């Protein structure tokens, strides 16, 4: 009993400490500039004024839209590209596939930052600066995604594959109507993972965007700090809360899938 109480106290305390920065951001976003300057912890009369300011003075809705589009495209691209590759590694016994799988895995050793200069030049030379394709295409092939899906595909019973083949089911149909539906939860895990990591991407959009039509929230926020942080911290915090909401919601509702995906990488890897 005493142990239970101690654990509850520890849980509450650490939850509060961990979440305090977020709570304070929410609180500050509802303060007046005067309250911010006086170092208040809680607004005396919470107002949403800073939110309407943030939305009106900075194209934050446009940034949010751009981030959605970019994250969604990368997510879809990764799901298609990785699932096709993983399917080949599991269901098509071609020569050299172990070697190729090894090559795929070894790409996880290459830090993406080590390739950023030539990638930037590629996008520049293609004339893809400030385009969605420039922001998304470099991230379609994800070795981790191929690995994750392969691990799941391996658990699909072989006799399903064999009986489908007997019935004259084509390879692509088997992929489309058996393998993909049987892997919904792993696909969701990878999808949410891809969406979140793309949403959080910072260096790449910083390099390849220079106008507000395609700029993502992360870079929009950086701009906003440069312009407003000396005077309007409540507005900056309102923007932060607006940017946090989509991913926090996605996390809360998709936590089950994310855990599954991350753990598959950790425990089997």
């Amino acid at each position, binding site marked *: 009993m005493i*142990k239970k109480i101690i*654990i*509850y106290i520890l*849980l509450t305390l*650490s*939850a509060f400490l*961990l*979440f305090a*920065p*977020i709570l*304070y951001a929410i609180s500050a976003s509802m303060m007046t500039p005067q309250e911010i300057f006086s*170092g208040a912890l809680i607004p005396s009369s919470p107002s949403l004024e800073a939110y309407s300011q943030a939305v009106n003075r900075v194209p934050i809705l446009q940034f949010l839209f751009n981030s959605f589009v970019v994250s969604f495209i990368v997510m879809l691209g990764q799901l298609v*590209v*990785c699932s*096709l*590759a993983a399917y*080949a590694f599991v269901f*098509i*016994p*071609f*020569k*050299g596939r172990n070697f190729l799988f090894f090559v*795929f895995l070894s*790409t996880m*050793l*290459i*830090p993406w*930052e*080590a*390739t*950023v*200069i*030539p*990638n930037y030049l*590629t996008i520049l030379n293609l004339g893809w600066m400030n385009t969605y394709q420039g922001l998304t*295409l*470099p991230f*379609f*092939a994800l070795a981790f995604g191929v690995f994750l899906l392969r691990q799941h595909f391996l658990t699909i019973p072989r006799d399903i594959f064999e009986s489908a083949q007997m019935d004259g089911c084509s390879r692509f149909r088997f992929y489309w109507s058996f393998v993909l539906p049987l892997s919904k939860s792993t696909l969701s895990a990878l999808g949410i993972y891809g969406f979140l990591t793309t949403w*959080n991407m*910072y*260096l790449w959009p910083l*390099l390849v965007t220079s106008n507000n039509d395609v700029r993502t*929230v*992360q*870079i929009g*926020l950086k701009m906003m*700090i440069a312009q407003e942080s000396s005077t309007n*911290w409540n507005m900056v*915090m309102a923007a932060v809360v607006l940017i*946090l909401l989509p991913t926090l*919601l996605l*996390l809360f509702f998709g*936590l089950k899938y*994310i*855990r599954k995906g*991350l*753990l598959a990488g*950790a*425990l089997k890897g």
Partner: protein
Amino acid sequence: MEPNIAVESRKDLTAKTYRKRRERKLFWTGMLYLSPALFFLVVFLFYPMFKTLYFSFFQTAGAGIVQGFVGFDHYTRLFQSELFLGSLKSTFLFVLYTVPTGIVIALALAVIASEKLRGIGFFRIVFSSSLGISVAAGATIWLFFFHPTLGVLNNILGLLGIGSIKWLTSSSWALVSVAITTIWMNIGFNFIILLGGIQNISEELYESAKMDGAGYWRQLFSITLPLLSPTLFFVSVVTLINSFQTFGQIDILTGGGPSNSTNLIVYSIYREAFYNGRFGYASAQAIVLFLIILVFTIVQFKVGEKRVHYQ
């Protein structure tokens, strides 16, 4: 006898060509399914990796126009440059600050959150939440916290009667401040993986330990931690690699300053390439980053193989 043999070998032959044809067909089918992934890997990973290596041996003008071969000049200059050596030192210090602390905090949280209590789901979500916090948003909140006069941290210190700290503007504190921000942002990921590892440990082990009269701490140190070692190992590899790649929080919090104390290696690459336009010199730094990560990963796996206790 003879005709029989002929028939046999002809059969063999056709079986062989049939098998070969089938193998070839399988190969191309496999390639067809792999082609999108291979295409993207070649264009955006293998080719640029090769190109980075190539650039690192050349003098370049703006926008990557190659001017002349310089051999290992960039590399020798790098290791004589105080700026780059300082950047390496800061990077290693930063890794040292963030990786062990981050893992220990997440481990403690995972241990208390693994208890089967009412409402534990709520705490697990809160502890995982930093996974949904993007680097720019997280760093911005801390930028506000670290604010010299408005920031909460200095206000609290003021209330306690302690003088304020120059979190981001003194070169002795800035790296620590960035490390605190980073640890906070990494907790969610580490927590999820470690909690999963703990939940994977079979319940029976704890039951029999209880029967033998083992208390809470005894169970923690003789069952949970040893059996968690593969997971701890995985988390340490991933966070180590991640912290070598830190960029966003630097850009928002300090911009590499003050006096380059937070100029971590990726930030240094960014500045050399995209501010100073020295693509060749920056590429040499990128190769150094690649080699550091490669060496650390190999060492960790070698050590891990020996030490880690697999179930």
